[in-house]
């Protein structure tokens, strides 16, 4: 009778998903051996967006820091890669990591200033900062000023001597980066930190009242997100071999699309960006030729989903089918009881964190 309550985290679906992910990872690692150049290029793009969206989701979905200025860090990462490889002759792959550190350090004073703004004005503040970085890099003539520059041939060849080897190396770097980003987010969300973040997501005053230091938590998440976003930015610029202020700090490419992915997929859930990225690339594959109509559709869908399905596709799946791909929640299971004792027929108490 008096069996203790059990706390479960993984479900059969999440175990299946973990096995599936490992299998998928194996196929993705081997992809250069059976996929062509353009497919690899597309996959790196998908990895980049998945990483950017997962990071934005961690930032906005969990801590409520609705930044529309993450392009600041994509651009900083790209420019850091160019500066590190051109001026300091750093090996490009290493520069992808160092670019993240550089930008994370710049994120500290940035956060110190814009954390004075709350809510929507915080969003505007992040955008202003991104514009400042864009306008500053448009003045740096050593990096091509407003018209930008290409990665010099000797740097390109230092990635790898042949084009095929370069493509493969960039691909594996991209794959490694997205796996690292997802693992980082997963580990954060599984930890004590994750509990704090989930508490902040659900109610800031309540989180503060049970001892979560909201300001510090947000600051650290902003810092980590900035660094990882910059590494992704460095990867993107390494893949493109070219950089310009307009493209590197583009609000459309690095923030509007990312927000679309997270909103459609489901904000505040780790599955969200995964689902959103798939939807985004499917739409892009079919509709990108329609130019402005395509963007109008994205805008309209984002509005409609936010208004009618605020938790996105992932939230809908979770509610309808109790589907969690990542074992992040804690489920309290009651011991089996004689019928009639428990008024709820469902043996699984609806306590979900």
């Amino acid at each position, binding site marked *: 009778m008096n069996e203790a309550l059990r706390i479960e985290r993984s479900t059969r679906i999440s175990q299946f998903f973990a096995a599936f992910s490992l299998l998928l990872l194996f196929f993705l690692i081997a992809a250069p051996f059976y996929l062509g150049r353009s497919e690899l290029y597309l996959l790196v793009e998908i990895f980049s967006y998945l990483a950017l969206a997962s990071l934005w989701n961690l930032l906005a979905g969990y801590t409520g820091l*609705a930044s*529309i200025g993450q392009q600041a860090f994509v651009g900083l990462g790209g420019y850091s890669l160019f500066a590190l490889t051109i001026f300091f002759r750093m090996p490009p792959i290493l520069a992808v990591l160092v670019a993240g550190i550089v930008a994370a350090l710049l994120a500290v004073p940035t956060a110190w200033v814009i954390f004075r703004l709350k809510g929507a004005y915080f969003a505007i503040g992040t955008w202003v900062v991104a514009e*400042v970085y864009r306008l500053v890099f448009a003045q740096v003539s050593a990096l091509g000023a407003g018209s930008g520059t290409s990665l010099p041939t000797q740097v390109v060849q230092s990635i790898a001597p042949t084009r095929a080897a370069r493509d493969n190396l960039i691909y594996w770097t991209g794959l490694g980066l997205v796996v690292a980003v997802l693992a980082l987010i997963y580990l954060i969300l599984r930890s004590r930190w994750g509990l704090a973040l989930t508490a902040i997501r659900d109610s800031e005053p309540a989180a503060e009242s049970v001892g979560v230091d909201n300001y510090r938590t947000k600051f650290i998440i902003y810092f980590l997100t900035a660094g990882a976003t910059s590494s992704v930015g460095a990867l993107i610029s390494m893949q493109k071999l070219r950089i310009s202020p307009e493209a590197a700090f583009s609000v459309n490419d690095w923030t509007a699309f990312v927000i679309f992915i997270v909103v459609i997929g489901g904000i505040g859930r780790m599955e969200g960006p995964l689902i959103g990225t798939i939807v985004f690339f499917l739409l892009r594959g079919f509709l990108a030729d329609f130019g402005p109509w395509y963007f*109008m559709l994205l805008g309209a869908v984002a*509005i409609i989903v936010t208004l009618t399905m605020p938790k996105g596709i992932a939230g809908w799946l979770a509610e309808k089918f109790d589907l969690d791909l990542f074992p992040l929640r804690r489920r309290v299971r009651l011991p089996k009881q004689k019928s009639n004792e428990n008024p709820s027929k469902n043996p699984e108490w609806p306590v979900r964190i």
Partner: protein
Amino acid sequence: MDLVATVVDGILLGGLYALFASGLSLIFGVMRLVNIAHGDLIVLSSFIALVVTDHFGVHPLVSLVLVVPFMALLGYGLQRGIFNRALDSDILRPVLVSFGVSVFLQNALLQTFSADSRRLQAGNLETLHLDLPGGMAVGVLPCLMFMTALVVIGGLQLLLYHTELGRAFRSVSDDQQTAQLMGINNAHLFGLAMALSLAIVSVAGVFLGIRTNFDPSIGPTRMIFACEAIIIGGLGDLWGTLVGGVILGVAQTLGARINPGYQILAGHLVFLTILTLRPQGFFAKVR
């Protein structure tokens, strides 16, 4: 003397920024919404004025007779149809929805009018100037913009503090639930606030179109200027917003004097500096 002229230019430019900002400030005051599509709505009204002037052959300022009611109606519809549904305790949804509206509008304008730069032809208003003592000349158009800003802000103050509608606006601003208990229809009132906001936007849009070239992509930057003016001035104070606009305008013209590439950068940097030193702005009423 040249420096004085630059500062005067900046002050008058601040009038235009205050026009950009006062509509945004009003809706933030009434319903705590920061409308990210605000700049795109300014550009939309410039384009509508362009259509009206082309079609009827009238002066851009005359086109306001049609543009103001059109934008006001659009504002009411936008508020009742979209924004009202996004307003709740969650801070994220209004940001996401108005960002979606911004992307939609920008591309709708791009699809309809192409990416070409346009301008509203205002005849000799563009070049008329007043000669001041000391050999200085001040454009009539910038003076007109500044005076319009004074009239708009003065009018808004009168409306907010001396009319029944203004009292209703202030009461929902203070406490939405209690206002509703007192018989105020919040949804309708928010619609009216957005209509008023976009009426002001259309005046700003026409002046923008006369003063500079415009194209569908310039909206977000105008929205950023408006927000900067509001934050510098302090949330909730309309005269503060005017001061904020003037500070931003002067920063930009002085920056442009050093190097044309520094114009917008100088404005942003002054904004960030003020934010660091005085985060509540100069005349904050809303916390």
